[in-house]
């Protein structure tokens, strides 16, 4: 077993640092702290953490700038902490290269899940071993054999729907922005056409979800994007 992963927490609020430290150290992570964006970038370069947990509302730097600067030389996964209602910044952060986000206020379970997904994703990228099969609850996707099953039943998808689902399935549990999905499925010229995505997502849901208004597999993050549930 490797040594416990280092997490760099860039957060200016003392109380936030305090309770995050308690929770995360109890989970076996080792915590490094930075109180400002500048300090965070230096710590990230000097200490090489396995993951960066970044609050977007920093006193000195715009959180998105921190992402840009770290992404210049590192692929370290970055999870962003942001307030709800700042969807625009979340999308900016994700498009700038952040891996995921949690909205303030958030529960411990939610945070740990994001961290797990981000670390695992980084590991797959590092090792180059991408899973060809995805399974969550009753939903099964085989990327190699190109089939989709819900509760053991084959589901027939249009090429677009299939591509949408497989794009999500390649990053299980991870937030994908509308822009990222549009770029992946339709191509770089269609990144502004949110409505395409919504129409096809709606159709895809009707095919795989029992109750589209209470989805189990494809979760909506209003104003940001979609996430394939890891373990519904």
């Amino acid at each position, binding site marked *: 077993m490797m040594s416990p992963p280092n997490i760099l927490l860039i957060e200016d609020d003392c109380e936030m640092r305090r309770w995050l430290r308690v929770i995360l150290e109890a989970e076996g992570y080792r915590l490094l702290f930075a109180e400002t964006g500048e300090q965070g970038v230096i710590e990230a370069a000097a200490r090489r953490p396995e993951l960066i947990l970044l609050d977007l509302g920093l006193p000195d730097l715009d959180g998105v700038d921190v992402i840009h600067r770290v992404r210049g030389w590192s692929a370290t996964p970055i999870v962003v902490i942001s307030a709800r*209602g700042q969807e625009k910044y979340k999308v900016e952060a994700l498009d700038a290269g952040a891996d995921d986000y949690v909205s303030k206020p958030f529960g411990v379970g939610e945070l740990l899940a994001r961290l797990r997904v981000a670390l695992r994703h980084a590991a797959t990228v590092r090792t180059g071993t991408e899973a060809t099969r995805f399974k969550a609850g009753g939903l099964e996707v085989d990327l190699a054999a190109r089939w989709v099953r819900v509760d053991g039943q084959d589901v027939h998808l249009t090429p*677009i729907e299939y591509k949408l689902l497989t794009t999500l399935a390649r990053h299980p549990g991870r937030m994908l922005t509308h822009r990222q999905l549009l770029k992946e499925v*339709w191509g770089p010229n269609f990144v502004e056409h949110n409505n395409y995505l919504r*129409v*096809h997502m709606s159709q895809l*849901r009707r095919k795989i979800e029992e*109750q589209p*208004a209470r989805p189990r597999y494809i979760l909506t993050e*209003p104003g940001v994007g979609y996430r394939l549930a890891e373990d519904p």
Partner: protein
Amino acid sequence: MRPDPDQLLQRVRLEEQKRARGRLKVFFGMAAGVGKTYAMLQAARRLRESGRDVVIGYVEPHGRPETEALLAGLEQLPPQRVEYRGTSLRELDLDASLARRPEVLLVDELAHTNSSGSRHAKRWQDVEEILDAGIDVYTTINVQHVESLNDVVSAITGIPVRETVPDFILAESDEIELVDLPPDELLQRFSEGKVYVPDQAKLASQQFFRKGNLIALREMALRKVAENVDAQMRGYRVAHTVQETWPVAERLMVCIGPSPFAKQLVRAAKRTATQLHAAWIVVNVQTPDWSRLPDAVRSRAYEALHLAEQLGAETITLSGDNVTTEALAFARSRNVSKILIGKPAEPLWKRALRGSILDRLVDQSGEIDIYAVSARIKGSEIAPIHGLRSKIPWREYAVAVLVVLGSTLLGLSLQPGIDLADVVMIYLLGIVGVSIRTSHGPGLAACLLSATTFNFFFTTPYYTLAIDRAQFVITFVVMLIVGLTISGLTSRVRAQASFAVERERRTHALFEATRSLSAVGSEGEVLASAARQIAETFEAEVAAFLLGEHSRVVLRTTSHDGEWINAREIGVAQWVADNGRRAGLGTATLSGAEALHLPIPGAGGRTLGALAVRPAEVHGFQDPERMRLLEAIVGQAGAALDRTRLAHIAQEAEVEVETERMRNALLSAVSHDLRTPLATIQGALSGILERGERLPADQQKELLETARSEADRLNRLVHNLLDLTRVQSGDLKLNLDWHPPEELIGAALSQLERSLAGRELCISIAPELSLIRVDGLLLEQVLINLLENAERYSPAGSPIEVKAMRDPGVVVLEICDRGRGFTPGEERRAFERFYRAQPTERGGAGIGLTICGAIVRAHGGTIEARNRDGGGACLRVSLPLPEDPPPFGPEARA
């Protein structure tokens, strides 16, 4: 008897005005040389010694050592030098006086006429402006310069007096000090050369300074001062309720016409009115003949009316057929007790024939006393009027002659076949024709000419003017009378018609102005409308100025291109706006301007700006009726401006009150609803921290769960507050996009996962409803609030229904519960700000539904609440359905 409240009010108002206005002290004398200037300077020195800021604005250079000695040590403003025909004239420097702003300013010779090029024609106008600026003024005046006494003095002394001061200046003065000297002493001083008289008046002064004259003048001066003291005492009595008897108010009416003596009649009336302490009205009755009078004659009446206004009379122009009837009807309507009229000027035979206005007035006046005033006073100057005869309409006379000639030829050609009566008819037809087409004179000429030719050609003996048979005499006389009557009547009817048209035009203009001004909303529209109305009615160019920042006038609108508006006109407008009096063309102030500038009156005596009217004709506003109409329209415009301003202020105030009310409500709601969950969280956490070891694990968990659910609630509340701020700030921009309804509903449900645990949720979404166009985040908030509301007001475990469907033209989202529903009337109040169903129940700032309403309205939709059959409440959101179907993307077809 109690004083009349109106009078008291008037007095209070006057006193308030006076407080802001400077006080006027007049040193009043019977003639030059009594020592007015000396007395004034002495008074000034006393003031100076008591520490007041006294400045000499202007004192005539007397060249007497006693006076010069008094001048020494007093601050003196340098006089303004005005070049006039090669000589340098000294004038009071008005602007320097206003700029210096002393406490008391000394201005000698109030009756002085300023040299041309000065702002005001008369020095007393300068003094008025200085008083208005709040500066006290000391001044001097001689009795012969009082307007109402002017012609009496002229009559006594035989010397015309041109420089006069209107009586109201004296009446409004706060103090009059009579500077008196026995005539003998004055004569002695005069003979010793101690009386200052300008060189050019040397000769006249010899005639003036005679004992008889001085005695008469002294008596007049004493009486004038006594009158003033009397008026002051009466004022005091009103204010202090001293009076026991209050005389029945006399009201005096004066009838004037275009007579050369009209002005004298007005002055006589003023004297009488003052002696009787009566209010007085000057009336000018315009008969249809009025319009046929030459301009110069008519302007005599206008000048007399103007003088009357200056002397403090009310002036009225009446129109009608009959001077006597109109004047008496008006007199009765105003309870006039005495009528003054000039003695008839017509020769006796004329009066015997046609009667005079005086006779008719005496006959019909009933209880009203009639005074006939001799208007002619020896020595008074009456300027002969040139062009008194109007131009003779030769063309019309030619027409008359031609028509009579035609009638004669026609008559002759039909002879001897027709009867003589028929010939008369032909002539009469001609006369009627001429009378209809031309003015009075040619009609009369046609009549006389017809009679003559008839006599000449058709009655025996032919071709002579003699008549030999009695029958012809009758024919001839009847023809003459009928012809004259027809011609007279016709021209009268014509004049009346044109008179009526003119009156109708005025009434219509005022009506139109009132109507159009009441219909417009903004300041700019009011001004534009007024300018257009005035331009059309008076055939003039109009510009409107309003007082803007730093009390500077700003040109707001012009009727035409406004090319004539230059710095001078703007200067005049500024003066008018500052002083609230008219100026410019045709007035005595800044009369060099091309336009007449009128103040635009606002509420409470304020002046809102100035309206400049540049008539096509220079004398365009000499007729007081036109002036009055113009003022009425400008007054209407002022009222309309006030109205728009008040409406604006009221609206702002209302918004402010509403904002304030809303802020207070929000603050109290928020402070309550933020603290409640915080209290729970704090209580639960401190319970575990401090008493944790004594609590069993399941109770600890319960406490923690309570804290967490309260934190969730707090989170939602904060979110709502943020949304409310966005909505209220007014710059809410909808981020409209296509969203599948299930996605929005799903997102809302996931936010409420914990609080909705254990609830049965029935979700139905119409399949044809693939996408709706909304702001996703805001609509999610609406759904969260509605779901939370349903959860809060229905029993735990009861089902909640969520529906999305399509109705004609709308998308409908419905959230229904099985709770207690709404009490009657509550359905509507539910969307009022911060209304909460039962304040004692579980929290929520009541802003949830307020937010919902605001968001849905921003989408152009509606939100309604109703009770369901079988119990429970339903909240229904209807959003407009966009026409264009959502695009599906290129690959959708693949």
